[in-house]
């Protein structure tokens, strides 16, 4: 028996133009959670994709229980007992939970010479594995009808059902609510007791401190070092990740909110289970946080305000005047912008350039003779944003899909800055973004507030919510359950209290 369950040695991987991994190593002890940390673009996901056979590595060796193994595709990885819970889930939403769980390895039975799928076994087994991860939804339910957190549980159940020896969690909690995180940690502790080695990728320091046994830090595609988690403080970890000291996690905001700029009255969705009778006001120069658990309908509410979702009733006032919003264009005309939660789903245009990704919302403003695009002026604006937000890219013609998550988010922010809204709604603005980029996004938010813009920020990260907001609204099951505006009352306990009213 080797000391390590899994060892990666000398892994190198290049993409056209970038050396993504340069001689990286990783050693997992059995029965431990190993946190893999680093800024976005540090190469964590790439390393895991090499391990899982999604990418072919240029050089390097993989040892499982001391034996050298070759992994050329995810199927081989799974046969070796390696499972992965993806950063961005890749299930088949139109099929059932059970089919997703057994995708690629359906249980079969023989009827005469014909091999058939054994549905009965499949559903029964699925139910068993879901129980194993303390979930009890119907195996026949269509996967797409579940929340992201529940889908993740299915992914984990899948890993458990494969009797995995090594499980990779790639930012599993980025879209989970606090109690879903708790459930996840319980499962991880169970797996640890069973001797499973786990890789845990996350940007959330408090979680790392709670769950991790060892920490490996990567920076710019290179290996920085491995330490026992207990020996490092949060500040030390961050310093090792960024290679510099970050003085202030949440930069101080210097402005105080002014007059009311936006008022939402009794807004209700056409769906009974979605947001109902929500009212709130927003002031100039204010950052209004929206807290709550996943499923609290915060995203739906914002999409309702922005004209993406249908409303059954309620009014929105901008600068005291009632506005009718039936389409995002109406919202934009009223001076509202929205940065969505699901960056890849409805944020970026992957196959288009950075320029087109910024320009798409503002072409109306850059016209010659009323209909010819003024590329000169557009280029200037895009170029300025790239510099101002320090977007890391060779040129504005680069496809946005080639950028890291943090830089993609900055491009989306540029889109809205160019559009110059009075109210900017930011739905989980720092989800899946590294510490450095997070800090930059916070600075931008404060800067906007200083200019007199108002910001609504949905955040599931408690410290961010409390650290950035002037005021916090909390939702629970579609209703606004509380509003906290006194600084001394802005505590995790108060938010959780409101968030779990029903």
């Amino acid at each position: 028996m080797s000391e390590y369950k899994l060892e990666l040695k000398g892994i190198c991987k290049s993409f056209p133009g970038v050396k993504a991994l340069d001689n990286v190593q990783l050693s997992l002890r059995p029965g431990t959670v190993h946190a893999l940390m680093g800024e976005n673009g540090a190469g964590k996901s790439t390393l895991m994709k090499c391990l899982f056979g999604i990418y072919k590595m240029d050089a390097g060796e993989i040892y499982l229980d001391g034996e050298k193994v070759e992994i050329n595709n995810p199927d081989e990885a799974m046969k070796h007992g390696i499972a992965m819970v993806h950063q961005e889930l890749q299930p088949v939403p139109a099929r059932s939970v059970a089919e997703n769980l057994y995708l690629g390895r359906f249980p079969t039975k023989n009827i005469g010479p014909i091999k058939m799928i054994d549905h009965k076994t499949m559903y029964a087994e699925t139910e068993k594995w879901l129980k194993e991860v303390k979930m009890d939804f119907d195996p026949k339910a269509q996967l797409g009808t579940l929340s992201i957190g529940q889908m993740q549980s299915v992914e984990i159940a899948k890993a458990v059902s494969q009797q995995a020896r090594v499980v990779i969690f790639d930012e599993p909690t980025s879209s989970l609510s606090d109690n879903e995180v708790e459930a996840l940690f319980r499962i991880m502790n169970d797996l640890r007791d069973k001797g499973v080695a786990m890789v845990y990728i996350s940007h959330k320091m408090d979680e790392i401190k709670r769950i991790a046994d060892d920490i490996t830090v990567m920076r710019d595609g290179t290996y920085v070092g491995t330490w026992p988690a207990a020996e490092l403080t949060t500040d030390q970890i961050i310093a090792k990740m960024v290679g510099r000291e970050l003085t202030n996690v949440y930069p101080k905001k210097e402005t105080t909110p002014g007059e009311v700029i936006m008022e939402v009255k009794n807004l209700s969705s056409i769906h009974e289970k979605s947001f109902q009778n929500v009212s709130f006001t927003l002031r100039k120069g204010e950052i209004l946080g929206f807290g709550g658990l996943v499923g609290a309908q915060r995203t739906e509410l914002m999409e309702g305000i922005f004209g993406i979702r249908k409303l059954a009733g309620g009014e929105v006032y901008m600068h005291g005047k009632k506005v009718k919003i039936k389409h995002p264009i109406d919202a934009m005309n009223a001076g509202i912008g929205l940065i969505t939660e699901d960056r890849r789903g409805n944020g970026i245009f992957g196959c288009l350039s950075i320029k087109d990704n910024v320009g798409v919302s503002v072409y109306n403003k850059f016209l010659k003779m009323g209909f010819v695009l003024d590329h000169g002026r557009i280029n200037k604006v895009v170029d300025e944003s790239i510099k101002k937000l320090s977007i890391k890219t060779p040129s504005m013609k680069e496809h946005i899909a080639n950028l890291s998550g943090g830089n993609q988010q900055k491009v989306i922010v540029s889109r809205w800055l160019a559009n110059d809204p009075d109210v900017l709604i930011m739905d989980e603005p720092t989800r899946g973004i590294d510490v450095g980029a997070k800090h930059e996004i916070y600075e931008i938010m404060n800067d906007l507030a200083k200019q007199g813009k108002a910001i609504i920020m949905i955040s599931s990260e408690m410290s961010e919510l409390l650290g950035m907001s002037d005021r916090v609204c909390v939702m629970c099951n579609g209703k606004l359950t509380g509003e906290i505006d006194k600084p001394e009352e802005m505590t995790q306990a108060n938010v959780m209290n409101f968030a779990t009213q029903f």
Partner: protein
Amino acid sequence: MVKTKQQKIKDFLINNGVIIVMFILVIYTGFTSDNFFTSNNLMNILMNMSSRLVIALGIAGCVITAGCDLSAGRMIGLGGCIAGTLLQRMDYSGKFFPDMEPLNVFVALLIVMTICAAFGTITGFFIAYLSVPPFIATLAMMEIVYGLGLIYTNATPLGGYVKAYTNVSNGKFLGINYLIWIAIIVAAITWFIFNMTRHGKYMYAIGGNPQAAEVAGVPVKKTLILIYMKAAAMYGLAGFMLGAKAGGASVQLGYGYEMEAIAACTIGGVSVTGGRGKVSSAIIGVAVFELLKVALQYLGVDANAQYIAIGIVIFVAISLDIRKYIAKK
């Protein structure tokens, strides 16, 4: 990371594989057949390309939004027939409207394009507002347009066109046939729309990510309708051009051209998954297609076997094209 020379050559070959093969084929044909490299033959190829290009440019808009247009071929037939009925000589015995003076050519063209555009608008409406998949919506319109064309013409072929109409094909300006000029102008206008207008940028955005386009404030529905309307107007123009060239038309005119146009677009690099494609893609695609057909003819390849060759080219071209985007792993 610096790419080695070998890699660069390999990339170049993969990225331009079909064009290179075409080039070799054309040169080979030129040297083995006597009258391939003649200005007459070249003009002939360009004439054939002209209407095909107009169709391909129309369909390119649909394909870039991750759609397609199966109604193109039948729309061409209808357009050709309407133009034909409006532009017959008074002394022609089988005149469709015996008592009607032939219209001005430009007026007739305008009528043809307007009628086709109207049908395109209907298709676009179903796609944009009722979320009917483009494949199905255009399939439905294909049937409707074909039926209308049959009823309108009583399924009889048309001929006996006024000189002004046939001149659209035969007449020349600066030694180049009007047909070719039309194609050049349409290509220029399309380039302008794709690159210099909001509509063009919105089209790419919708093809790239329709949900994100909605959130970014793109008028998705209006843009989609406009795309199918514009495309249909171009099919009408193509029908008009083909009628002028042949000196006659029937409802069968242009049948199957929609598939060749989609194939040409994809060969040139318009991605069927949406968001990618240029005017030059359509031009390259159409050129490859036409050159292939002519070269095979000159080489004496059996007419039936030519279909097989075209199929193989589509397979190879698309496989190579896709490699550009998936090779990044």
